[in-house]
């Protein structure tokens, strides 16, 4: 009896936290998106969102950049994570990968501004080969490069632990039975490490949809995502209702992404 009571007591701070800082704000956003500036109920914000071409295009843009960032990150992280499971001092290597996340994001962004600028490291290097200053800053390349750099640790870690959990005997068995390296990867490694890949994708794709600090500092506002629009509606025009509407759509999209990536895993389990 008392045991049950203490258990409910333990859950109180968590519940309070969730209600105050997760559920209430979400309801507030929803409420704002369903009202106009004089607090009357309206669906007009949503109608405007889907009828106005800009928002749809911005949505596609956000998706496209988030997709590119996730893809590049995955392409770099998967081999890296695999490599980490095979080396001796993997703890040190892991520490080296985590280390940059201790540095403030803004500082890293400013460091990259220095690296990409006309007199920066990149251009000094190119100068050695006689290639004149190339404009890196404020390009799609720079934006995706920096975003990838920042996201890599969050992709490597889950994949690393997923691969590490695979019983080496399974891989050996597949090799003994004459599977090629590609077949081993395709039928053994990849499906078994999928949960790690999935949480990596979720940890990167979803926040990438609404990046706005980087689009501004590194993209020079030439890359526009839904995050930029939200910031503009809340801070500049103070049209909180439209800003909240974009927020609601973004949350909805994120849920969809979670569902899609989540369902695949379930099917896999049934197949096994």
């Amino acid at each position, binding site marked *: 009896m008392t045991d049950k009571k203490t258990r409910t007591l333990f859950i109180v701070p968590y519940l309070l936290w969730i209600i105050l800082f997760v559920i209430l704000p979400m309801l507030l956003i929803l409420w704002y998106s369903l009202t106009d500036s004089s607090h009357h109920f309206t669906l007009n914000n949503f109608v405007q969102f889907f009828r106005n071409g800009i928002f749809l295009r911005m949505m596609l843009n956000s998706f496209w950049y988030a997709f590119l960032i996730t893809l590049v990150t995955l392409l770099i992280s998967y081999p890296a994570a695999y490599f980490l499971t095979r080396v001796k001092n993997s703890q040190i290597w892991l520490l080296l990968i985590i280390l940059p996340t201790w540095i403030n994001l803004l500082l890293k962004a400013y460091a990259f501004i220095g690296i990409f600028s006309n007199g920066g490291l990149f251009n000094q290097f190119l100068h050695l080969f006689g290639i004149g200053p190339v404009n890196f800053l404020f390009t799609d390349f720079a934006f995706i490069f920096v975003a990838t750099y920042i996201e890599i640790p969050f992709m490597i870690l889950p994949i690393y632990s997923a691969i590490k959990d695979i019983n080496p005997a399974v891989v050996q068995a597949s090799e003994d039975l004459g599977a090629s390296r590609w077949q081993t990867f395709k039928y053994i490694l990849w499906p078994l490490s999928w949960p790690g890949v999935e949480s990596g994708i979720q940890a990167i794709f979803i926040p990438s949809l609404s990046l706005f600090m980087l689009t501004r500092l590194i993209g020079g*506002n030439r890359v*526009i995502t839904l995050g930029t629009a939200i910031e503009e509606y809340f801070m500049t025009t103070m049209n909180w209702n439209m800003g909240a509407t974009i927020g609601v759509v973004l949350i909805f999209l994120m849920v969809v992404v979670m569902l899609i990536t989540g369902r695949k895993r379930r099917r896999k389990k049934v197949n096994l």
Partner: protein
Amino acid sequence: MKKIIWSIICVLLACAGLGYLSYRLQKPSVEAKKQNLIIYNWGDYLDPNLITKFEKQTGYHVVYETFDSNEAMYTKIKQGGTAYDITVPSDYMVSKMKKAHLLDKIDRDKIPNLKYIGTSFLKKSFDPNNDYSIPYFWGTLGIVYNDKYIKKGSITSWNDLWRKKYRRQILLIDSARDAMGLSLASMGYSMNSTNNLKLKLAQTKLNGLGNNIKAIIADEMKMYMIQNEAAIGVTWSGEAHEMMESNSHLHYVIPKPASNLWFDNLVIPKTAKNKKAAYEFINFMLEPENAAQNAKYIGYATPNTAAQKLLPKKTRNDRQFYPSAKTLSHLQVYQDLGNKVTQEYNDLFLEFKMYAR
């Protein structure tokens, strides 16, 4: 488990120590004086020596807080958390705050030094009788260019920005009113146009500038222009002045045919608790000697004609920052266009940013 508890204790102790320290540091400043004057101003927009001088002269204690945009300031004043006695909105924000009943009416009799302000800076459209605002600094919207990349004197009008050879050279200020405004002005329309068709036209023309734009940014522009990162920047005169202090290759022009004339103004919000001090402070700042010292420190143009005379000749005759009467007559002050049209400006600008590639 023990380890965890120890580390938690360590963190808590460190937090408590730091908290106590900051409390100790703040305490004397709050306790010592009986009366505070709380000023809410733009960052780095007042010579700190003047605050000390004011405190010595009057015995008030000045609490100085800063903001970085009119909108942020508006939100904070509206919420009313702190009883600010003085704040410094720009022109269109004065009328917006006035409409929202956030400003206290100013009793001009209590500010005898108002006589030092030039008549051309009074009775502007955003506050026709100066019932609510006293001009603090003023300036223009214009073009900064670097003579390393661009021949001196080759840029004189807004239309010059559209030249093909400036591909990916221009840093544009991230502000809907200014970007749309320069496009409107380049076609000879008013920078306060509300006509939907004219705005659409302005946006179409702006889209044509897309190829020349390197980035659309705000405060960072200063750094880039100083480091010779871009050839051209569209920005406000005050910002330009700061850039030019650090890079002698930069020059500022007020483009033809028209541009924006802006004012930052001292106002007293309704929430003010210490109005007497607020009046004394405004009067103090209008004292020619103080106004001149402030203008020297900040580098913006002062509307205080008596103070202008105290400035070095080189400064007050600098046509870049104290334009001639003829240029002045072409300049337009932004009006508050109401929520609907402001939204339209911003939507069109966002659309431009979206498609300008």
